[in-house]
């Protein structure tokens, strides 16, 4: 049974992490496309129109990857976590099905119009479809974060005689305070990914002396958005979320910080390797009192370490929680630094004169993906051993009728299929990047499939 629980967790972790490569870009990119589109329409500037069309292509490819890898997630609660689903459907079912009804319909309807309908719509009409796609992706993020937030921080529920959960207040579930903090953090993380991808590609073009004009637009917009989002991500978003977590999941916070012993003036460990066997941090590089300050605002406050909690409530993989958290925070700090330097150079009109900041932007592209993933691993591995924090253990949630052989079969199947998808996806994105903005849209013909004109 232990094996089956672990396998089911890996199954979910693998499919959701592969899935999340795509939405984190599309959610952020949807916003940046609206920015491009707005400037294009306001200034009637063809370069911005071409940029918007180019990013729409990247968006479309990522979006479909997000859709097809997202459908399995909608079903996996039932397939692999049946016992969990049976008890929580009455609550989590609300945000999960609202996502379908309120955002997937919206996205799918307007993405078609946005990609196919530029010629049949007025300028502002087409702009409105971009805004609708943006709204759809951000709503979708909201609902699914709210579903997860209830597992992290169950609120507004009653427990019925059969053990299942029912909502005591609809708005309580939909406006879960944990979820609001998590949502801001998630969305701002998505904007960081999209900004770094946009600047990174702009830097790539500038360094290879291609599409200079478009590339400068990409870098300018990406740097401004990236600066705002990466600063917001640390403060107030990350700070608030971290503090809320420290109060409501103190044992998770202790694992994230690698704080085994309860201490006054608790240190913040920058680097080190937690050793769960003898409950120490090896090779620590630490700031004394810093953790107490971050959580309670004074350097001498006492912070609960893992030893303040029974061991059966400790996250079952402390090093994973510790490292994923530190990777997220470390990278987040680097993003702020990179964006401040680039924004300064942009302001002084020196960004495009040097090659080194462009190289830095180019090399940064993978890291927001890693930081976003690491953040989710921190949240979800940190929630363990609970599937619903404090109420239901993960070991009680899996599908009892599904054997390890079946789970292996489908896990390997997903790995093979997603491996193939990755190759096709990278190949296609590389082709789109090679073609570059304005490749086949003289006169704004892209996105206008040849339906007869009477349609609009």
């Amino acid at each position, binding site marked *: 049974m232990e094996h089956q629980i672990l396998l089911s967790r890996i199954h979910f972790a693998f499919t959701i992490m592969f899935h999340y490569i795509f939405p984190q870009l599309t959610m952020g990119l949807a916003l940046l496309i609206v920015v491009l589109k707005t400037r294009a329409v306001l200034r009637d500037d063809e370069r911005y129109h071409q940029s918007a069309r180019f990013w*729409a292509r990247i968006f*479309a490819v990522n979006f479909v990857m997000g859709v097809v890898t997202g*459908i399995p997630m909608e079903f996996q609660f039932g397939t692999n976590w049946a016992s969990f689903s049976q008890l929580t459907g009455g609550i989590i*079912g609300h945000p999960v099905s609202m996502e379908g*009804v309120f955002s997937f319909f919206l996205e799918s309807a307007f993405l078609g119009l946005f990609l196919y309908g530029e010629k049949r719509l007025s300028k502002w009409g087409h702009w409105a479809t971009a805004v609708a796609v943006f709204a759809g992706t951000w709503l979708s993020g909201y609902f699914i974060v709210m579903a997860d937030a209830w597992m992290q921080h169950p609120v507004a529920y009653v427990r019925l005689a059969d053990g299942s959960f029912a909502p005591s207040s609809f708005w309580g579930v939909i406006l879960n305070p944990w979820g609001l903090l998590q949502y801001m953090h998630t969305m701002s993380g998505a904007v960081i990914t999209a900004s770094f991808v946009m600047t990174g590609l702009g830097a790539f073009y500038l360094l290879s002396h291609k599409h200079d004009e478009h590339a400068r637009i990409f870098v300018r917009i990406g740097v401004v958005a990236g600066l705002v989002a990466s600063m917001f991500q640390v403060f107030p978003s990350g700070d608030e979320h971290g503090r809320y977590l420290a109060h409501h999941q103190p044992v998770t916070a202790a694992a994230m910080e690698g704080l085994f012993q309860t201490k006054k003036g608790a240190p913040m460990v920058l680097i080190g390797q937690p050793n769960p066997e003898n409950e120490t941090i090896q090779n620590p590089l630490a700031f004394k009192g810093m953790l107490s300050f971050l959580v309670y605002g004074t350097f001498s406050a006492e912070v609960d370490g893992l030893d303040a909690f029974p061991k059966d409530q400790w996250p079952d993989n402390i090093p994973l929680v510790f490292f994923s958290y530190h990777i997220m925070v470390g990278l987040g700090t680097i993003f702020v630094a990179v964006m401040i330097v680039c924004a300064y150079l942009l302001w002084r009109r020196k960004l495009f004169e040097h090659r080194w900041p462009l190289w830095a932007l180019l090399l940064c592209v993978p890291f927001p993906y890693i930081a976003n993933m690491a953040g989710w691993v921190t949240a979800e591995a940190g929630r363990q051993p609970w599937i619903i924090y404090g109420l239901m253990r993960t070991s009680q949630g899996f599908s009892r*009728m599904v054997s390890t052989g079946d789970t292996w079969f489908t896990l390997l*199947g997903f790995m093979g299929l997603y491996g193939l998808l990755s190759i096709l996806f990278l190949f296609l994105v590389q082709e789109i990047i090679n073609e570059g903005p304005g490749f086949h849209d003289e006169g704004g013909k892209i996105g206008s499939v040849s339906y007869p004109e009477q349609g609009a």
Partner: protein
Amino acid sequence: MTTAWFILVAFMLTAYVVLDGFDIGAGVLHIVIARTDEERRTVLQAIGPVWDGNEVWLIAAGGTIFLAFPLLYASSFSGFYLPLMVLLWLLVGRGISIEFRAHLQSVIWTNFFDGVFSFSSGLLAIFYGAAFANVIRGVPLNSDHYFFEPLWTDFRVGPNPGILDWYTCLGALLALVSLSMHGALFLNLKTEGKLQSRARGMAIALWVAVVLFTIVETASTLLLRPELQTNYLHHPAWFMIPIIVVSGLILVIYFLAKNRDAAALCASGAFLAAMVVGAAVGLYPTVLPASGNPQYSLTIYDAAASPESLRLGLYWWFPGIAIAITYFVFVYRMFRGKASESVSAENQRAPI
């Protein structure tokens, strides 16, 4: 209220079958009747702006089952584990092939995705038919209302059936031919020239097969599960559903003969809808019959979430679906008319 949610879920699944049905059907026929690259692009253009939205009905229905009938969601999704996972892989392959094909002008690339598109569409139709037939035939539920069904056992309809037996295979073939006919009628409406005449010929040929399979399937259902007639006999008004099935089929061929292509597509939609609704009426209030002990059958009352949850859900479901239907009307109006074959060179690699 539990019944209300049963109706809502049935409505969503019906909408899914009718709407995604035509693009799945178009996918099945894609490599058969669209022969040149231009024709294939036309097929993809015809479904391009709408397939994703059509598929959302499935996702939304899945979410709604999770919300309203958590035990049904948990039991059926884990019990149908293997076929459901394969179905998900097919949906992945299909979505990718529709969207990726147009981005590159390489014969290998486009042919590969044409093949994936048709293959996955065909298998999807087969899986849906088999799944549907499994629900009608019943599954080996235990006293907790859970089960796990292997892909096949001895291909016989007994107390320990597999996903595939002769009855569900029959359902699979019925789904394949009826969705293909639906797709052919859609292409007949949306295309011109040779492609249209091939779609038309295909629709007529498939119509014959649909009629045959519908008769055989209905007869064997009544033989295997006579209890499905109970609701009909108690409330004879429901007999209008089989009447819609029959008249839908007749009208398909009548409207085709009159060249009223849109009406023919609607008639086939009515036929599909009536088939799904007819099964739902027959099953009610059971949602998952047991193939062994009938006491283990899962009814809407066993499976439903708390009344509070169901009540809250109604508040947002109706406005949400009303908005969604508005989108659909808007999008379908926007892209009405023929999807033309004369694609200019610049547009060959337009997004999607």
